[in-house]
């Protein structure tokens, strides 16, 4: 049965430029002299290092433990020696740095003991743990830990599994080549994902500009029940997770909701391939396919060890002289790399050499004329021009009302804008500002809560103390009144403990007096806030001096004057 296609609104059709990098098969990139493996490679916490400098590691050995559940493990991409664990800059738009394990390969590529698993015999929970420990994250670029995406929703299962082979960004072809060359392994990975999610139906969406990939995947799934390869119209961003789910199932997942709530979940073909390697071969995620294209002499796709310096890869393809920057990811959503000596991460699907001729800078920014081109192009069906006005005016409340957080930053609006307004940058600004405000608000809320609780606690303690004393007093009074009767009716065990026995009248009296003194002291302390605490020693000395002088004056005042004045 052929799945009926739904449409997503908006989208654009930039020139695809896929031919450049699909002429040659995937090439294994040579082992570099150094590997820099960032410990943080998923949209989660930063794993803690498990190795020390000087330690020998094997290929596939765990070098970073997943931190909490929202993280995945990190492994040595090859065998060699750990040189150091140090902060290095990551390929990230902000140029942030994070702890990285620097490994010097020994060139032997000696694996750890690989233990293949028979997934059909394993429980979904065990397989999810296996994926986490194998470092499996979404290879489409978002690097979301895969084991978390496989938690079924309320219904206990994920009915529809969507496999994303759309690859809609221009220039990028790593998924295309992977599907052409390793369709069988991808389908094996899909079977594992399907088993974990207990999904009934699997839909593999591939843009119809990749006929060879479609044919290969069709051949690989020919004898699989309930798995269907569906060519989808070539229109960016057809490979956006929400757009692909919409096209294949008609389900629209809004911001803040997740697929399993709607009985659907989406995985990239590269992720499926690495799931197969992890489960059926026992090989954790240590490499990925990277497209190297754009303004280079020999564009192509390479199987690259995670941690390989990008410079080493660029040497393989020969960037042309007028290359002015490198973009990681595609031209629609990728970011300019701050430097090129950064390592390949699990998120690196494409390194794109850009030149002014290939990617001309947009013209001079003009005022918005509300032409509506952005609205027609927006796949999230937002009103980008309204969001632009609100973001510009820092009217964040309005921006949120107009669903700014539903923006997937696909760049369609800025791509079509005749006024060359960098619309996505305005949304990023608004979103970041709002998140910062939210954080501030949360911090001040927490501070207020702390303060209120402190007040509550002080009050409670005072009350408890007063109650205790009152009880003591009552007991003592009773003791006085009832002669030798012990204070058996002490209301709280604490009070009873403090006054273990009141056998004598004298003792009771003493207690009464002590209670009165204590009460007076507590009152004095409670009522009079001292502003003389926490002062510098000189100040305190000064205060003491003044107090002494005052006491002296009081003393003098007490003695009657010898002569009337």
């Amino acid at each position, binding site marked *: 049965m052929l799945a009926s296609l739904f449409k997503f*609104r908006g989208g654009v059709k930039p020139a695809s430029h896929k031919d450049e990098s699909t002429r040659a098969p995937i090439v294994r990139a040579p082992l570099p002299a150094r590997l820099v493996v960032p410990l943080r490679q998923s949209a989660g916490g930063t794993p803690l290092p498990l190795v020390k400098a000087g330690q020998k590691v094997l290929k596939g050995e765990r070098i970073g433990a997943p931190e909490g559940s929202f993280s995945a493990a990190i492994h040595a991409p090859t065998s060699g020696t750990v040189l150091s664990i140090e902060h290095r800059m990551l390929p990230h738009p902000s140029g942030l740095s994070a702890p990285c394990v620097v490994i010097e390969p020994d060139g032997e590529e000696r694996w750890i003991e690989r233990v293949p698993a028979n997934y059909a015999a394993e429980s979904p929970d065990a397989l999810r743990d296996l994926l986490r420990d194998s470092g499996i994250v979404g290879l489409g670029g978002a690097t979301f830990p895969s084991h978390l995406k496989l938690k079924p929703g309320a219904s206990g299962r994920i009915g529809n599994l969507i496999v994303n082979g759309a690859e809609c960004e221009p220039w990028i072809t790593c998924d295309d080549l992977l599907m052409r060359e390793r369709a069988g392994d991808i389908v094996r990975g899909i079977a594992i994902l399907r088993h974990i999610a207990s999904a009934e139906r699997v839909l593999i969406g591939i843009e119809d500009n990749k006929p060879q990939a479609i044919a290969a995947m069709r051949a690989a799934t020919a004898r699989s029940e309930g798995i269907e390869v569906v060519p989808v119209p070539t229109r960016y961003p057809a490979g956006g997770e929400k757009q692909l789910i919409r096209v294949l199932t008609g389900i629209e997942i809004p911001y803040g909701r997740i697929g399993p709530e709607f009985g659907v979940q989406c995985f990239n073909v590269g992720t499926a391939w690495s799931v197969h390697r992890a489960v059926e071969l026992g090989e954790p995620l240590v490499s990925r396919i990277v497209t190297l294209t754009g303004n280079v002499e020999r564009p192509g796709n390479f199987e690259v060890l995670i941690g390989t310096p990008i410079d080493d890869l660029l040497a393989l393809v020969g960037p042309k002289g007028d290359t002015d920057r490198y973009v990681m990811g595609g031209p629609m959503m990728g970011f300019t790399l701050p430097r090129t000596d950064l390592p390949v991460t699990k998120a690196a699907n494409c390194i794109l050499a850009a030149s002014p001729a290939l990617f001309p800078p947009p013209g001079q920014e003009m005022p918005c004329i509300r032409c509506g081109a952005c609205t027609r192009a927006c796949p999230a069906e937002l009103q980008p021009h309204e969001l632009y006005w609100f973001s510009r005016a820092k009217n964040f409340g309005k921006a949120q009302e107009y669903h700014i957080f539903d923006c997937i930053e696909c760049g369609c609006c800025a791509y079509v*804008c005749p006024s060359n307004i960098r619309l996505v940058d305005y949304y990023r600004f608004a979103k970041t500002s709002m998140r910062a405000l939210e954080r501030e608000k949360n911090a001040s809320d927490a501070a207020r809560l702390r303060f209120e609780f402190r007040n509550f606690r002080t009050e409670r303690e005072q009350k408890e103390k007063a109650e205790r004393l009152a009880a003591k007093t009552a007991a003592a009074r009773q003791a006085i009144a009832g002669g030798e009767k012990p204070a058996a009716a002490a209301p709280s065990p604490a009070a009873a403990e403090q006054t273990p026995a009141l056998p004598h009248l004298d003792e009771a009296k003493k207690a009464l007096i002590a209670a009165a003194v204590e009460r007076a002291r507590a009152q004095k302390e409670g009522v009079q806030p001292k502003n003389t605490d926490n002062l510098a020693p000189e100040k305190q000395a000064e205060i003491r001096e003044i107090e002494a002088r005052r006491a002296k004056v009081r003393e003098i005042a007490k003695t009657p004057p010898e002569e009337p004045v």
Partner: protein
Amino acid sequence: MNGTSPHLHLPISVRLIMFKVLAALVPGIAVYVWFFGAAILVQIALASAAALAGEAAMLRLRGKPVGLFLSDGSALVTAWLIALTFPPIAPWWLTVSATLFAIVVAKHLYGGLGQNPFNPAMVAFCVSIIAFPALMSKWPAVGFTDFSAQMAVVFQSQSAQDAVTMATPLDALRTQLHVPEARATVAGVLGSHASFGNIGGKGWEWIALAYLLGGLWLLQQRVITWHVPVAFLGVLALIAGGFSLANPDRYAGPVFHVVTGGAMLGAFFILTDPVSGATTPRGKLIFAAGVALLAWIIRTFGAYPDGMAFGVLLMNLCVPLIDMGTQPPVFGHKDEQKGGTP
């Protein structure tokens, strides 16, 4: 800054959009010249010069990059629309001062390109027809196409103007039907008056057809969407048709209304102004329907021959409200708006 995505951009610009609008006006102007003489070209030139001069002066005053904005074509679009809605033999100073008013007051005092809440050309038209009703209703008589004679009127070197002017079809119809004792009927007026052609006014139906051609090209070029022209012409025809059916003697038919006056120019070139019009699809429908209703009421019952300009300005006022009330549901939020969860 090239650091952030997207790194790709369509080779498109505000200038390109504006020049496409100007190009789409050319067929209409050509037919206009054929029927009413070359005076319109002089008016377009006058208005263009005034618009560019006013724009340059304002940009200079506001400290904006003069060259960049002057070449965006938006001032020229305003100028051409003013010239095309004014009588072709309007005195030169009226065209010039109205254009300056449009650029300086209606456009730049509100913040320039992209900020004006009112359509500048329609502001110019309304101000002029209120201030100079006699001059604004002076249209060349049929056959008065002699260029030098027209120029004499435009530049007022002669005073033999009354002999060469006459009312427009809309004006004539309105005036004669408004005189009760004349017992005029629509058919009677249409048949008797020299300015009427076969369907609309003499020549008007052809000019309207040429505007339609240009408008369809703009649609094909995706400069405008179908919502405004369809809603405007549809509603105008519907109202006119309904009343005409009920009382054919008193109310002109839908075809007459659609091909005469500023209807076709308005449908494709004036109401479609993105800056001052509604932006949501449903908002565009409401906006255009509102203009159609107002235009028909003013044409039929009002004191002015054509209600287009007033209709546009009145609906411009409502745009923020319309846009606010017609926000389409966002991806994934459709069921929420219906009140249920998916």
